[in-house]
């Protein structure tokens, strides 16, 4: 059953890295209990999984996790989180994902025993429900495989269950490219939220059964796609900023169903979610540049309970393997944050993080502590997902507008024009969810099988 958050857990002055209202405790690791911990993730270098010799993939994972743990010990790091993001073949073949999970859990156990290195293992199967067009979100065999993957990884030693679910993406993909705000709302706040409810009921169930933790989801398939396209100059940054704000509505559903964090690293909307839920969040920024270039390298740190590198291939650089390098960088970043906290000064460092990025890019500005809290507030004031989306979309436009006029945010002429344009579309949105949904359902009927979202299908013939 879904509850709805109706008020904020944090005001702007208490929204700090390392501190959650409800820290997560498991094994000897505490997340959000005052200190920021590194979360390390890695992936295979160019590899043909199908054609690799039996055991070869496993041995690469074993090598990586050993090397990063050794580095952590070397640098006197006492706890960390390792994320295993399954690749598609590892999810489609749940036994394969299970075997690697078991291996990683085993290595972490070894380091726990031999060096006292405390750790948790997050597993993130891929959302494989994209094999057909339109995708089968509930009725396909892939959905079964996906849940099986969760179950088997949980049994094999995972601690935290996450996914980067893609419900609604068949609408958001083209909407991002066309800077189509209505499409974003439909795909994110309507379809996306419906899918999240379904998906997270199941995951929370699996977590409860297996004694693991339902951690959280991210709408990065929407928000980060927009960010990457904006970064390449394909779409306006102001649009990507507004998209980011709206994704909070979608990702929030996981916590309203029962996920307890830590939220997944690549969801920058976690900033808003932390203000709302008070749950611990993983964030990523400059030390994840190996995976995503971004305009939010420092400001993302404001909210980190875990600090992640997002992902890096196991390739050799001059000093060593890339995951080891990431491990080292994350540890130093965490040391700095934790030192300021030990001095009772995390607020100051957080403000520097924010100030250093905010004025240069609307996507960074939208993540400023004050803004994050304001956006959280308009979300919890509504109880319908579409209306939450409209409210946070409008609010973000308004905030960006104001920031620009007051000289707190740089925008090019073209960006300004787009901000106006998005503002106009936002102001014209219907307040009645049903009206909106009916209109959009028709528009996207070629792309979406509505029954897969628990909605009534629109026959394709009707025109």
């Amino acid at each position, binding site marked *: 059953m879904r509850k709805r958050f109706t008020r904020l857990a944090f005001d702007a002055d208490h929204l700090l890295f390392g501190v959650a209202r409800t820290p997560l405790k498991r094994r000897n690791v505490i997340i959000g209990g005052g200190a920021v911990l590194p979360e390390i993730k890695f992936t295979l270098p160019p590899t043909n999984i199908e054609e690799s010799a039996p055991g070869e993939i496993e041995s690469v994972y074993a090598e990586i996790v050993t090397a990063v743990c050794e580095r952590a010990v070397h640098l006197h790091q006492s706890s960390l989180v390792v994320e295993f993001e399954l*690749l598609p073949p590892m999810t489609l073949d749940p036994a394969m994902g299970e075997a690697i999970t078991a291996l990683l859990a085993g290595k972490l156990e070894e380091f726990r025993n031999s060096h006292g290195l405390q750790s948790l293992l997050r597993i993130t199967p891929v959302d494989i429900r994209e094999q057909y067009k339109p995708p089968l979100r509930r009725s396909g065999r892939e959905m079964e495989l996906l849940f099986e993957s969760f179950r088997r990884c949980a049994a094999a030693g995972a601690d935290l269950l996450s996914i980067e679910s893609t419900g609604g993406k068949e609408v958001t993909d083209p909407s991002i490219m066309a800077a189509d705000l209505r499409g974003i709302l439909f795909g994110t706040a309507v379809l996306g939220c419906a899918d999240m409810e379904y998906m997270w009921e199941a995951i929370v169930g699996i977590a409860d059964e297996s004694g693991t933790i339902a951690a959280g989801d991210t709408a990065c398939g929407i928000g980060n796609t927009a960010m990457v396209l904006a970064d*390449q100059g394909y779409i306006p940054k102001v649009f990507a900023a507004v998209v980011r704000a709206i994704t909070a509505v979608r990702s929030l559903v996981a916590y309203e169903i029962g996920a307890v964090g830590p939220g997944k690293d690549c969801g920058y909307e976690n900033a808003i979610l932390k203000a709302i839920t008070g749950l611990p969040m993983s964030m990523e920024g400059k030390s994840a540049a190996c995976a995503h270039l971004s305009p939010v390298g420092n400001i993302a740190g404001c909210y980190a309970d875990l600090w992640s590198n997002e992902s890096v291939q196991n390739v050799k650089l001059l000093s060593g393997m890339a995951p080891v390098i990431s491990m080292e960088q994350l540890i130093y970043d965490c040391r700095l944050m934790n030192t300021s906290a030990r001095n009772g000064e995390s607020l100051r460092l957080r403000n520097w993080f924010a100030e250093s990025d905010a004025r240069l890019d609307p996507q960074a500005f939208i993540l400023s502590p004050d803004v994050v809290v304001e956006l959280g507030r308009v979300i919890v004031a509504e109880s319908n997902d579409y209306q939450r989306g409209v409210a946070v979309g409008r609010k973000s436009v308004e905030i960006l507008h104001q920031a620009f006029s007051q000289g707190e945010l740089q925008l090019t002429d073209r960006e300004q024009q787009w901000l106006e344009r998005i503002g106009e579309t936002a102001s014209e949105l219907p307040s009645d969810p049903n009206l909106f949904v009916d209109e959009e359902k028709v528009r996207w009927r070629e792309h979406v099988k509505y029954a897969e979202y628990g909605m009534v299908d629109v026959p394709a013939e009707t025109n």
Partner: protein
Amino acid sequence: MERYEEIAEHVQNGYSEKARKAVEAALSEGCSPERILKEGLIAGMDVVAAKFKSGQMFLPEVLAVAGAMKAGMELVKPLLVAAKHQSLGKVVLGTVRGDMHDIGKNLVAIMLQGAGFDVVDLGTDVRVEKFLEAVEREHPDVVGMSALLTTTMVHMKTVIEALKQRELRTRVKVIIGGAPISRNFATEIGADGYARDAATAVDLVKELMNHAQQQ
């Protein structure tokens, strides 16, 4: 002359309705479909492509332009086919097996179409067989493969090897792209080219077509 410019301008502005009407008018005035295509529609798109490439235009704007171009094309194309007009060239595109990322590939398709190429998009998760069939069926000038995962980029080589084995490799140029791809990798697996973005992909295809024609 004026007509062509008018068409080009409507295309540039992304006005589909106006572009369609102007093409209609031009045809009724007896303008040649070839010139309408080249000096009107494509000329308009060329300006936009250049602006897009130099970062002065956003994709949603380009999509509107592509829409206007398409509106005009729909009228002109049947006449061109009748006159056995050849497009600038034909490109088969697909994201390789196991990979569902398609935004980058879609962008490449849009930009190529805008530049006047015929594009056959095979979609995502495209297996070797499908690439081979498409080459046999469509007789493209260029095959373009996209991959975003380090574990799927390796399939590009498989496709190239299979093309060789079926003796299709010499018939087509092979180009590749996607975030994990580098120029080095392209050379290594024996592709004819790599482009880091959609605008460059168009230049690359043009260059390869020129080379091919010179030979």
